[in-house]
């Protein structure tokens, strides 16, 4: 049974949630991003955010532990209860992707303390291709806009408790997202050395914008930072990117992915092929943030499409 809420009541509803929870929702600064909400009116639900949600689960800099004189002191993760509001289908699935690979306690604790509230994507833009990525239904609550009302689907007990005071809906509203862009064929394992990739690689600046804004990219670097003139310090986990040369550098100076081509293709192949081999799911959720953020407008989705269509012609 779906619940129902008037669109103009939404801000009041969010305000009531803010009493007991930390509410994270999309806001529009220069670019749209998720932020801890201070005022419900700041909420911006018109378009997909460019900055993904992952910083709230995988912070840019995270202290794993402190050490002093050979003794380790673990940091306690804050157990604040959070609600994330206005997540698109791709954002929700991105968390599922991370769940499969991230298993360290800080992450799990943050995940357990978070309630996910989804929102149906009214207007996917020219970069969205989520329909091609076989996404799942995963949410605690999911809002479908229809007329001047939101119809709310309930996905879990946690979600049901939040909306128990709202009216029941008279009908069921469910919609499928309509994409314009498509990833035609995901079976690209044998196309690794296709020459079509070279055009993209030539354009690549290795600036790592694609990986920073990807909601499922989770590569990291571990650094030990020593305090000045004392036998103490901390170990921190920082966000890194496979597009950087320094990422695959090991002791002795050997760099495993020296060429730009190998780094660029690794990004695409990890999303579509390597991850799929292990988990039988795609790592890419089709949100199109990598295409949107690229300063040189590299479109690897079109590249795959053109590789595949060319082959079809030959047959």
């Amino acid at each position, binding site marked *: 049974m779906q619940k129902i809420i008037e669109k103009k009541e939404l801000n009041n509803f969010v305000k009531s949630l803010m009493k007991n929870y930390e509410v994270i929702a999309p806001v529009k600064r*220069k*670019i749209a*991003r998720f932020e801890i909400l201070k005022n419900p009116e700041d909420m911006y639900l018109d378009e997909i955010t460019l*900055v993904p949600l992952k*910083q709230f689960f995988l912070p*840019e800099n995270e202290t794993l532990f402190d050490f002093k004189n050979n003794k380790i002191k673990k940091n306690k993760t804050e157990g604040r209860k959070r609600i994330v509001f206005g997540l698109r289908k791709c954002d929700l699935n991105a968390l599922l992707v991370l769940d499969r690979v991230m298993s360290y306690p800080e992450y799990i604790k943050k995940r357990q303390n978070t309630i996910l509230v989804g929102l149906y994507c009214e207007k996917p833009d020219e970069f969205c291709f989520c329909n091609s990525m076989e996404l799942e239904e995963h949410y605690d609550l999911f809002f479908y806009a229809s007329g001047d009302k939101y119809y709310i689907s309930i996905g879990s007990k946690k979600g049901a408790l939040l909306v128990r005071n709202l009216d029941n809906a008279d009908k069921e509203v469910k919609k499928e997202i309509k994409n314009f862009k498509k990833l035609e064929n995901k079976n690209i394992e044998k196309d690794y050395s296709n020459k079509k990739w070279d055009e993209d690689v*030539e*354009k*690549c*600046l*290795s*600036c*790592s*914008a694609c990986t*920073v*804004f990807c909601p499922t990219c989770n590569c990291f670097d571990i650094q030990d930072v*020593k305090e*000045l*003139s004392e036998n103490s310090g901390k170990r921190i986990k920082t*966000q890194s*990117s496979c597009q*950087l*040369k*320094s990422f695959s550098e090991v002791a002795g100076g050997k760099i495993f992915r020296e060429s*730009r081509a190998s780094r660029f293709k690794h990004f695409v192949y990890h999303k579509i092929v390597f991850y799929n081999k292990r988990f039988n799911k795609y790592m890419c959720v089709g949100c199109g943030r990598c295409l949107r*953020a690229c*300063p*040189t407008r590299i479109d690897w989705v079109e590249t795959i499409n053109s590789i595949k269509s060319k082959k079809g012609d030959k047959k």
Partner: protein
Amino acid sequence: MNLQNKNNSKLKAGIFGISGCSGCLLSILFEDTFKKINDLLEIKSFPLIKEDKYKGDFDIVFIEGTVVFDDDIIFLDEIRKRSKIVAALGACSCFGGVPSIKNFKDDEKTMRFVYPKHNHLKSEKPTPINLHIKVDYYLPQCPPNKEEIVSFVNHLASGTQFKNCQDPVCMECRKKGNACLLEEGELCLGPVSNGGCSALCPSNGVGCYGCRGPSKDANMNAYTANLKKRGYNKKSIKDKMETFAGLSFEEEMEKDSKWLGK
């Protein structure tokens, strides 16, 4: 290089400047940077704040500024002989910095523009210090990053390896969630410049000037092709590059000579 001596005393340090604005030396004095490095180093010479009477050897010497006069070279040679490690401090001593803009202009014209009447003055060519002596470490940026100076000294004192940031400015900029300045119509050298500054300029709405030098992994061809599409001409790109790290961008260009249509 392991500098730790047996009796565990502090490393002997000198902080000098040659032709330059002394801004980098000053940045060591800002906030608590000086206090922090003073805990780890025994600063024997620092002519900016105290008369220099020390005649012995150093473990580590920081040098700010560009080589312009013959005296600078003589001074550098002497310091190199007296010190185990030399670190170039700031964009000028690493890449030539702002003074070396002159190297890309017509010598005589520039000379007459600045000194219309003083015919007895002769024009010199500003160069980075690594063209004259061996430099072990570089601490670029204009002015240098205070945190990087402290972390460098910390590494040196504890005998661990120090490494400059090799990633482009874009990485740090995008991690902060900034909007891309190129998209907003600002000329930004971020994609081809070395990071390590936490994207200071782009975060404040100013396009990167590349004061930490060109990134080793820079894709100059793709970058300039992209800028041309956005309506920038060769001159405006070159002017921006020449501001702080001109000489080293020039080197990078020569490697990738295709991009300027040579």
